[in-house]
């Protein structure tokens, strides 16, 4: 039977100095690990922007000419929209408006199609929720299906079920054998 793990007690008369040292070292290790994780989390949350606001917001806008390209990537010669939009973006950034306000300004002027990703809330949120909802549902569904199948599985006979199935022809059995050989070394 496996012994339950016990922390060595520092002031116990039976604990050797080596055990006490190891216990302290372990505690310090875990404390430092937790500290590091917290620091990383705080750094990730708190660190400021490296990109300029122009690049950040420009990366969330589409060119309005219908080319389907991002505003800052649109390189159509004589594009009727992108040069003007880029000038407007510079002006908006210079005015000190927030990212959200700039995006809202563009959406009002050019319509919602100018936003590269839906951010208006309401039905737009469905665009984000659906893929992740399906993803989570698919994972959870698989677990549930496998769990149900596993519960329904008859007690093991010691033979693979495919081999005790009676409705498999000899030809088919031979074919399966060959496939088994092919897919295993």
């Amino acid at each position: 039977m496996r012994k339950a793990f016990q922390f060595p007690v520092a002031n116990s008369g039976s604990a050797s100095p080596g055990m006490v040292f190891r216990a302290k070292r372990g505690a310090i290790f875990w404390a430092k690990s937790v500290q590091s994780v917290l620091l990383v989390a705080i750094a990730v949350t708190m660190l400021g922007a490296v990109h300029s606001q122009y690049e950040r917001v420009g990366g969330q806008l589409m060119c309005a000419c219908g080319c389907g390209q991002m505003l800052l990537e649109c390189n159509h010669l004589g594009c009727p929209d992108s040069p003007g939009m880029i000038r407007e973006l510079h002006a908006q950034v210079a005015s000190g408006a927030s990212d959200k306000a700039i995006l809202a300004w563009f959406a009002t002027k050019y319509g919602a199609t100018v936003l590269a990703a839906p951010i208006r809330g309401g039905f737009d949120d469905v665009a984000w929720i659906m893929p992740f909802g399906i993803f989570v549902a698919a994972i959870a569904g698989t677990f549930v299906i496998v769990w149900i199948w596993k519960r329904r599985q008859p007690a093991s006979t010691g033979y693979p079920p495919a081999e005790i199935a009676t409705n498999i022809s000899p030809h088919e059995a031979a074919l399966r054998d060959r496939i088994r050989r092919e897919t295993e070394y």
Partner: protein
Amino acid sequence: MQSHPMPEFGSFCLLLGLILSIYTLAAGALALWGSSANGLRLTGRPQALWNRLGETARRAGIATFICVALAAFALVWAAFTNDFSVEYIREHSNIALNPWYKFAALWSGQEGSLLLWALLLTGYGLVLRVRHRVDVRLTAFASTILAGIQVFFLLLLCVGAPPFSIAPGAVPADGNGLNVLLRYPEMVMHPPLLYLGYVGFSVPFAFALGALMMRYPGEKWIHITRRWTMVTWLFLTCGIFMGAHWAYSVLGWGGYWGWDPVENASLMPWLTGTAFLHSVMMQEKRGMMKNWNVWLIFSTFLLTILGTLLTRSGAVQSVHAFAQSDIGIWFYTFITIAFAVCLFTFFLQRDHLKSDNKLESLVSRESSFLFNNLILLVACFTVLWGTLFPVLSEYVQGDKTTLGAPFYNRVNLPIGLFLLFLTGIGPLLAWRSTSMRSLRRNFILPTVATLAAAIGLMISGIRPWSAGDDMESTFFSLVAFSLAAGVTTGIVEEFLRGARVVKAQTGKNLFASAVLLTRRNTRRYGGYIIHFGVVVIFIGIAGGAFNRSVQSEMSYGDQMNIGPYRLVCQSITQDSTPEYDTDYALLDVYRGNKFIKQLAPERRIYFPGTDHEQPATMVALHETARSDLYVVFDGRDPNTGKPEIRAQLHPLIAWIWIGVVIVVFGTAIALVPNLQRTAVRPEREEGVGATRPATPAVENDGVLVKARHA
């Protein structure tokens, strides 16, 4: 009245092809019904009569290919002879066009690309019908179903989008020429490869539907279609990546995948096709997932049609607008009929699709395949959702919502990484159930490699927490690189484990043993090579998180620094040719003080001064395995008249293309028949060999023969 012999000949061939396809469908279906038990009983006609009718249907199917090939020839002939009386040729060719691009005119427009589709479909049909002895009855079913698809496309070509329409009025002296973006060598290859992939999925679809209709016993139909599916998948993979490389090299925006609806349309069947290639192994091996597999291949086929519908009907906005028209209704009708046939057949025969086994454990190869399938389908759904959401939002809210690259990247990156993770763990799990001991043994090295890579990368500077706005992309890159290390270790471990066994058996060195191991089980080890190719592609994609871009006005002597490179402007030149005006810069590239090469980014305006003036970017590239230096002539500043040069550094992007080559190599290996051992030599069987010491390698080679599988 002026006569147009070649266009008339082409139209006649298409009409004859349509009639032959209708005959193949009708006679084939009648022969299949007549030769069934019910048919024989009800008609009282002998089996031989129905067989003869079926044979005429098969031959008519073969003749259809000849008709469509002649029609395609007629269109190409019209392009080469500059027959601008044909509207299609006038729109997509001109006298000065390079002969290669004249040939490419066949698929550069709506009608021509549909003709190419029909040609490839009948070509696949030809191979299927010629090789009918593999399984005569199943092939007859597949041939009849394929004929149904042929009827649709030929009807479309004869009525909805005829490629040989004669333009009204006087014949112009010259045509409009090919879209300038398509004048690129890869564009000669990209559409046919993509179409070979698209159209190719019709064959496994036809076999699957046929097998279901005739209640085909066992899994042999999967075995018959395995190579079809793999070749088709390979074509689609090559087509997609060739398109990506074209977008990268030609469009000049610095990316290779813009999540355009047309790109999405090609990705969706690729995702479901990949899922199918994995899940059929479960059916082959354990008789499981029969319903799932049938619907996967149905979905793949329907998605190829849906993709065509989306991009040609004008339902969604696309940069590939050259192929839009009002033929959407044709595709809506066809997709509805095809779906109805699939659904009806499935409900009629669903009792035939009962699984022989069920999943026994969550920690098994089967469940990893199941997860892999689900994730691929979720990715496919996401792409479909993103493509259709603008239409849906317009319906619900009254205005269109755009889903651009930021949406797809945010949603698909976690899904892609999860797939990469599954790529790593799947092959390390055993069929049915994996013991804890086996888990420990198989996973310890990949896990250590993953963690070591993550720590090493963080030490070397890939730290999401200090990447600011790039935190998300840096984090995903870190995860991708770490997983890539783990998956690669797992693959190498699998090769080594098998190679050691072979080495012990044969006495060959480890490398020779690994080669022999691969040749003995090409499917399994070819698959691992494909997985490795996918890992390399992911490395290339992950490098995108560290892209850099600099843009500035440049004139003679000006310098620009990006990454380790220094660009020095040597000259700015303007020139004119009969076809285009050009503006280009000559830039010397230095790394430190060492001269590397001269780049010449260029901006062209084709047909200047005409009403169809078209700009084109000629990107200048310096490609290395470490990073690409990508330089674009962005135009001239309207105020200063100075040229604007944009330089970008794309780390690791070359690995995407290298990864594709590895995938192609792996697929080619998986397609090669296995080397199999012959029966063990008698003296060995009797134990004589067992008493020998190490057997010489040469002698061992003698016990191998090439065996062809069905």
